[in-house]
């Protein structure tokens, strides 16, 4: 099992049936993949393609990969009725998330005012000519969606029994190291030292959204990274955490965000049907609800 840092999170690669040298080579190739994606699509790097798009005042030609990303995002926007929307970049900056996250680095003395609403549909994407036209108020943040997508890419290049974990967004290929499935501990958002439930997962991805970690002081309150596109402000949810099991890490990451924004009333219905396979909902009060088809290893 190998670890490295990328996209401001810990990435773990394990392929338990590979020889150590082959497993290390796999981890090295995954590290290179994450580094390349981060270099090209981070909104915090001035030299990235995404930063260039976010600065463009005129229609610009982008890479085919950028077009693919935007087209995939557009499908998630449509499927979530706009609750998932990567054009929240300006709202994230206004909330204080205007640089790479580190604990305490984003603290600000006064609260911010959300900008006007941005909608993904305002972005003009010319797929054939790979050109994108960005209205001035639109800033794109690919965030967790990009991370999940990169996990999937890395997992596709891994052996049949392998695990790629990007800070809790993980793709678990095959039946696990011993054929009994992969064990996934769902962390308690109220006490990160504790595990609420352990799931047994086979050939599926898992992702978790919560507002307890990537957060910062904003005036007398606390802001976090889960922006509600409807308000342009950090989401207010009666859920403390949502964990989703789905066929891909990209899908699981998007669904976890959307379920968090929908709250307890709408999350269960979302996660008990495809494309989700199930989920774990944790309320603000600490109640844990399992929805969908999940195999629990221990309660």
């Amino acid at each position: 099992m190998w670890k490295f840092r990328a996209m401001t999170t810990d990435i773990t690669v394990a392929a338990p049936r590979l020889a150590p040298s082959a497993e290390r080579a796999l981890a090295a190739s995954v590290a290179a993949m994450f580094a390349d994606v981060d270099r090209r699509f981070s909104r915090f790097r001035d030299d990235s393609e995404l930063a260039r798009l976010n600065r463009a005042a005129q229609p610009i030609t982008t890479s085919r990969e950028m077009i693919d990303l935007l087209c995939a995002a557009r499908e998630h926007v449509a499927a979530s009725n706009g609750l998932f929307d990567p054009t929240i970049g300006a709202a994230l900056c206004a909330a204080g998330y205007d640089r790479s996250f580190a604990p305490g680095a984003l603290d600000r003395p006064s609260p911010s005012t959300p900008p006007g609403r941005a909608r993904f549909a305002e972005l003009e994407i010319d797929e054939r000519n790979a050109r994108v036209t960005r209205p001035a108020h639109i800033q794109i943040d690919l965030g967790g969606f990009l991370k999940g997508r990169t996990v999937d890419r890395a997992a596709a290049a891994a052996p049949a029994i392998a695990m790629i974990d990007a800070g809790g967004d993980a793709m678990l290929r095959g039946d696990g190291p011993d054929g009994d499935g992969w064990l996934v501990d769902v962390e308690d958002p109220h006490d990160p030292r504790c595990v609420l439930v352990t799931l047994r997962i086979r050939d599926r991805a898992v992702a978790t959204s919560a507002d307890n970690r990537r957060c910062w002081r904003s005036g007398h309150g606390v802001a976090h990274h889960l922006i509600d596109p409807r308000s342009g402000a950090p989401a207010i949810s009666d859920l403390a955490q949502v964990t989703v099991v789905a066929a891909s890490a990209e899908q699981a990451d998007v669904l976890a965000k959307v379920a968090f924004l929908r709250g307890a009333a709408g999350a269960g219905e979302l996660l008990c049907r495809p494309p989700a396979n199930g989920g774990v909902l944790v309320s603000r009060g600490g109640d844990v609800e399992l929805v969908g088809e999940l195999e629990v290893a221990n309660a």
Partner: protein
Amino acid sequence: MAMNVVASTTESGTTESGGVTITTMTRTTMTDRAIQQHRVTPTEWRLYITTGLAVLYLACWRAICGVAPALPPESSRTTAAPVPPRATLWLDELPAARRPPILLPAGWTIADRGAPGASSLRRLVHAPVSRPIRVRTRSS
């Protein structure tokens, strides 16, 4: 223009020729400006001493070490001895059949030259494997 005589030398000689004594006297004089022109300044002294030491050093060097070997003629230099082999080379520069067997420590691998992941290889950390392998999902 009058000049002050500050030094003079007098040479005299007497010859006798036929009972007649002839006395000759030569007198030279130097002016103060001439003396200043011929006075050795400290800078000049240092130059003389340095030059002298350098000559002495060269003389000693030639005496002890002999004459430096002369360069071979141009024609012989073009057919000089073969260039010694390079001390280092990349492994993939060798034909596969000539590559020496390399025993790597556990967990090590040989990276391709200039591979995009070459820099990230250094940051990889081997984590101890707990059985069973567990994944911890959380917000990140």
